[in-house]
């Protein structure tokens, strides 16, 4: 199926056979959940419950439960929304764009990354819903549905409406893409199932997959088509999210650089989140041979590159503000750096621009602990980026009489916590009941290196050489 150069190193190490792969992955699905899993799940459900309380109070009493005011109409809500949507970019990027570019190393990570995407987008979608003053009307009035009010349509000029389309399209395509990929693996689990219940459930989930050559062929063409569909979406979703700001008149928002800058930032944060999750999964599920240090390094390089793009964007924005000669624009950026929210700006700069530069050092980017810490730092930084853009631009815009400060309340924090609970609950359920690595695809790259004819000893030798190199 593939032509590989003789120097290419194996993507899956440990001399795994196809059967090993099946065993390694299915073991988690078929076995009893561990104590660790139960603990993690309990914590997630706890977060979900506390956050749920905050959410219900907000819905019951009104948006006033949050710290927003007449000047700052969006803060944590839209910050969290953009943050989660950004995170939700990595999965599709990995499975779609890297598929088109034939980056086979993606096969070990795409399943988890896509799952993360789905859950992140679900979390993101909570905020545009919850932030509405009248959710009970908003969730369908924002859709261009035929209605009995006469020719009452949505406002197609509004970037918020574009968001509705962008997010829902992205979510549906990602979901379908992810699910299609799962079907052969569900079939594997179904075939191995020992009891009737799991046989029935996985049987239903696998849509009667028969493993015939024709089926495989269709499977691959659908995957390719969906990848083709998903690719522009990766770029469009965050572009459109950035339009929420870029098309406005508020200094600090009204910026043409936003679309590429937001997309780069999204990939940046998405990969960081993939790192965070996979490093844990890899450890807990003992998947070191599938998610190798090579994967981690490659992802770190992407983080480093996108982090640099983001950094350049920050500086460009700043220079343009000066160059423009527009006093409001200049003030907005001076205020970001030196105003009352200076700490948010400098947290953002440190986390997003300075910290990923550490990955230039090979030792750091191949170090698991450093990667884990930096991946979290990056996501903190990306949260601050959105906070800086939204809150510091709004809190001091044109008319000084209306300048105000924003302070979050318990309910702001609670709703954010709710999405964390939601995300991790979903992710842990996924990790337990779904194969976390794409069995079918990984099996196709077991022998993709040029050493396939050699014996296992040699492979181990090669591994050692590689390890030496790494150190």
């Amino acid at each position, binding site marked *: 199926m593939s032509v590989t150069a003789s120097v290419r190193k194996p993507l899956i190490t440990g001399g795994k056979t196809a059967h090993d792969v099946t065993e390694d992955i299915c073991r988690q699905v078929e076995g009893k959940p561990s104590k660790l899993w139960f603990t993690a799940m309990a914590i997630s459900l706890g977060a979900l419950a506390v956050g749920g309380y905050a959410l219900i109070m907000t819905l019951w*009493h*009104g*948006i*006033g439960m949050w*710290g*927003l*005011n*007449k*000047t700052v*109409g*969006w803060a944590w809500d839209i910050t969290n929304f953009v943050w989660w949507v950004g995170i939700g970019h990595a999965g599709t990027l990995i499975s779609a764009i890297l598929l088109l570019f034939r980056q086979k190393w993606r096969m070990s990570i795409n399943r988890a990354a896509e799952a993360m995407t789905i859950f992140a987008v679900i979390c993101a979608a909570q905020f*545009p819903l919850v*932030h*509405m*003053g*009248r*959710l009970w*009307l*908003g969730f369908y*009035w*924002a859709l261009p549905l035929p209605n009995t009010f006469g020719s*009452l*349509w*949505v*406002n197609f*000029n*509004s*970037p*918020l*409406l574009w968001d*509705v389309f962008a997010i829902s399209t992205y979510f549906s395509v990602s979901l379908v893409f992810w699910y299609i990929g799962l079907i052969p693996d569900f079939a594997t689990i179904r075939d191995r199932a020992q009891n009737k219940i799991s046989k029935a459930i996985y049987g239903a989930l696998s849509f009667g997959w028969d493993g015939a050559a024709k089926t495989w062929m269709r499977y691959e063409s659908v995957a390719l088509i969906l990848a083709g569909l998903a690719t522009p979406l990766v770029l469009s979703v965050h572009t459109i999210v950035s339009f*929420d700001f870029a*098309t*406005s*008149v*508020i200094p600090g928002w009204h910026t043409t650089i936003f679309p590429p800058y937001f997309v780069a930032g999204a990939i940046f944060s998405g990969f960081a989140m993939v790192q965070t999750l996979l490093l844990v999964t890899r450890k807990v599920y003992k998947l070191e041979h599938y998610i190798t240090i090579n994967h981690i390094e490659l992802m770190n390089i992407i983080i480093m590159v996108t982090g640099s793009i983001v950094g350049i964007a920050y500086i460009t924005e700043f220079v343009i503000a000066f160059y423009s000669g*527009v*006093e*409001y624009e*200049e*003030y907005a950026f*001076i205020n970001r750096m*030196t105003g009352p929210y200076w700490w948010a700006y400098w947290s953002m700069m440190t986390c997003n621009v300075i910290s990923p530069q550490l990955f230039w050092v090979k030792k750091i980017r191949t170090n698991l602990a450093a990667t884990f810490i930096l991946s979290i730092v990056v996501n903190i930084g990306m949260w601050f980026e959105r906070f800086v853009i939204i809150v510091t631009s*709004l809190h*001091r*815009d*044109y*008319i*000084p*009489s*209306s*300048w*105000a*400060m924003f302070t979050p309340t318990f309910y702001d924090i609670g709703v954010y916590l709710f999405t964390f609970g939601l995300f991790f609950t979903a992710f842990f359920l996924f990790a337990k009941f779904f194969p976390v690595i794409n069995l079918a695809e990984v099996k196709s790259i077991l022998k993709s290196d040029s050493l396939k004819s050699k014996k296992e000893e040699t492979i181990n030798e090669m591994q050692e050489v590689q390890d030496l190199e790494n150190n």
Partner: protein
Amino acid sequence: MKDSKKTYWKGLEELAQDESFKKYAQKEFPEYLPVNLQKGGFDEDEGSSSRRDFLKLMGFGVAAASLAACEAPVRKAIPYLNKPVDVDPGLANYYASTYVNGGDYCSVVVKTREGRPIKIEGNTLSPITRGGVSAQVEASVLSLYDDARLKKPFLNGKASSWEEVDKDIRGKLRSISTSGDKICLVSNTILSPTTKAVIADFQAKFPNTEHVIYDTYSAEGLKSAHQNLFGQAVVPSLDFSKAEVIVSFAADFLGTWISPIEFTKQYSQTRKLNNGKKTMSRHYHFEANLSLTGANADYRSMVKPSQEGLAVAALYNAIAKKAGAPGYNTAKVDVKFIEKAADELWAKRGRSLVVGGSNDPAVQTVIAKINDLLGNYGKTIDIETPVNFRQGSDRQMAGFINDLKGGRIGAVIFLNANPVYNHPQGSEIASGLEKIKLKVSTTDRMDETATLCDVVAPDNHYLESWNDAEPKPGHYSLAQPVIRPLFNTRQVQETLLSWAGSPQTYFDYLQDNWKTNFYQGDDTGLGFQTFWDKLLHDGVYEHEKAAIDEVSEDGVEEAFEGNSDLSGAFAAIGKNYKADNGGYELVLYQKVGLGDGSQANNPWLQEMPDPVSKATWDNYFTMSQADAEAIGVTMTPEGDTSYASLTAGGQTVKAPVLIQPGQTRGTIGLALGYGRSKAGKVADNVGANAYPLASMKDGVANYSVHSDVSIAVDAEKAKIARTQTHQTIMGRSIIQESTLPAYKKDPAAGRVYPKIATSEGFKAPGAISLWKGHEYNNHHWGLIVDMNSCTGCSACTVSCQAENNVPVVGKQEVLNRREMHWIRIDRYYTSNEPEEGLGKINKLRAMEDASDNPEVVFQPMMCQHCNNAPCETVCPVAATTHSSEGINQMTYNRCIGTRYCANNCPYKVRRFNWFKYHDNDQFADANTSMNSNLGKMVLNPDVTVRSRGVMEKCSLCVQRIQAGKLEARKENRRPVDGEITTACASACPADALLFGDMNDPNSRISKALKIKEKDKTHVEVGEPRAYHVLEELNVNPNVFYLTKIRNKDLGSEEA
């Protein structure tokens, strides 16, 4: 295929074509009802109900019964059996009336809907207030629906009936009267001549009755001065409109002093500029607190109260030197602008005015003499037409308190007065009352005084009452009830009549009084009724023969001998004033919103931001930055500060500290009117009561304390809720201002014309628009805001609140920066010029701090009704759209509350309903107009009460526009210019707001803007002062601002 002629029949019936067969042949299914409700409809055996039917019916019955038992909202809409002639559902009626609160006066027109008064407008027919109103007047309609009002009379602490109360009081009064004990009627100023006649009747019936009058903010000093100089203890009429130079020594004449509505009307005339008129009055202000008036001054000087007398003396000496009058030696005091003011006053002799807010007779005497030397009497000051607004006598009140303490009084009747709260010696009055046999109050609520009384005979609200008023001799004003008394209350006049034994109603009494004393017959021969009807229709009446009566009968003692010798006054000044007082000094003042605190239970006034400090729901010590630092108080912009305890004259008051730019160093300001304990749920325990800090000095009330004032910071932290937390303009061209000399040279002085760089050079923002514009074929509404006229008084804010059902949110929500006002008045202080050589960042930082004595500018800010509205494009559901008449309109029903529009509004005028403000216990204590059946009566039925989660904002009073257009259409004509106006513009006493149709070339707005040409995208304006705020954004508003012009000398940088 060949047609088959064969037919198959199903049975013999078909073959035979039976009738019974034919009948049912087309009906496949038999008609059959399983339940037979009509007896005899079917055969007996078929019709009998089965068990199942029974159960079905049972089930239905139970369900129906339980549904019926659920309390369905009962909404009664009962049509009139006999419709009152003028009451048409949906149509408003307007009645002229008179607002009187103590000595505060305003001629008003009351709007009623379906018999409910809902809005107060100014009465343009009044020669005194000329259509102006104040925030207090606007808010008074809500006081009518105050839950704290008493609903029936009280006798010995128990609810009672009028019969019982009358019986009890008549008996007691008779016995007291026969025993020879004194009966005291205690009231504030009474403007009503007929009420005075009632009191005279009462006095005739009980000859040992004394009528004691005091004012909550005394003007005794002013009257004494005129007594000294002219032998008339009066407050003269002032005419600021004729004054070209105005010098005020701490008289807040635009805010709270004597007759602020009238003065604002006059003053604003002298501040208007246009092509024809390029002159302005020049206004010097010398004061300790930064008052509303001081904020409007051209030159403001900071003077401590302990220096005030010396400053006045210095001005006198400077003028006297020019006039050749004798000068008097006083200590030298270094006050800026005294010499300059003297020169200009002298140059404008007879066209100038010097006023003083001090209650010190000596100071007022010198001020009066200055005016005399300047020849202002008879020109800008009319002593022949004194005003009746302040009739109180501090000395008489002091005598009353003495008698009270000595137990020499048999009965006290408080006629709507609340001296226990609002008199400096309130606590002495409270303790003195214990010894009195009969204590009666007629106040409308169980206030601080009424709780100490045996009998409370609650008076009607003024909107439920008949009355008249005589603000000035010869000027009369009528008050008519616009609603039946809501509760079992009785007009105080009628109560007095009843106790004096007269069976007459006050209405008859009033009419009789007018018939005998004012009706002079008329040539038309239509008789008194016509005269009376016209009187009520106009609300005001001018009497030819102005008689000065009973103004000097208060028996003011003369402090100084002689009419022109001021040595006594100067001796008193020399004794009482010091040029360099070391300690802190306290200045008590009234706030524009709350005044003396009588309307403290009115949430509209509590939440109205103080025009200067922008603080709501509190009073506080105003201190200069340096003084606050000295006592260790820091205040964040968000209003986090500390409490401090101030001790003066043995009284200690605790209040938060507010750092106030413009506050004279060494002085501390504190507002009266707060700290009510028995006013109602809105006002109780809001702020601190400052009245005990006032003192009586030589028999007159003294509202400043010069010595032995100490202040210490408390450990307790406080938060002051301000609607504006950033105080300076940051060098932005949002405010465009200049000086008069510059304006005379170039009417466009101060204007900033933003230009946008394009490939073809710089262009005006409007020239490179992406927008297609709007076609306005009918009307094109616009609004002009003249920043030169606006004094910042905030009457517009409350007027808008009443008109548009704007909720009150309470202190905590103001702290959360969520006040809902649709029109706000932005107040900016100037900052010091940043030092040379500072970097950009440091410069910007320096601009955040206001100067010690800043210039102040007020900018009313409401929805700008942009033609290229940023809010309209971003709403996902098109809930905010542009009307065909230029209005940016909100469709509340469509709004889903994303708040995107508010974020994208450069003017930040959109207001979000963060909570449900109506029918919500959380807001019941603040938003009284939406949380009780009584309060809801004030709501304007033409305006939706917004639900939670909905965005709202200024609609340019679209309901008034619609009403005006309908009215015009009914009469088959175009609306006349001025017929339709917004609530803010109609309330403005300074005529700073002008609303009109820009499509009508003859409208005042078109003329004021000098509209040259109009097209879809652009209105070409010829008035050089007119500008759009944030023109560079090209949002192209329909609201224009006129530049602020200060009457300062060219190149004078000093404030």
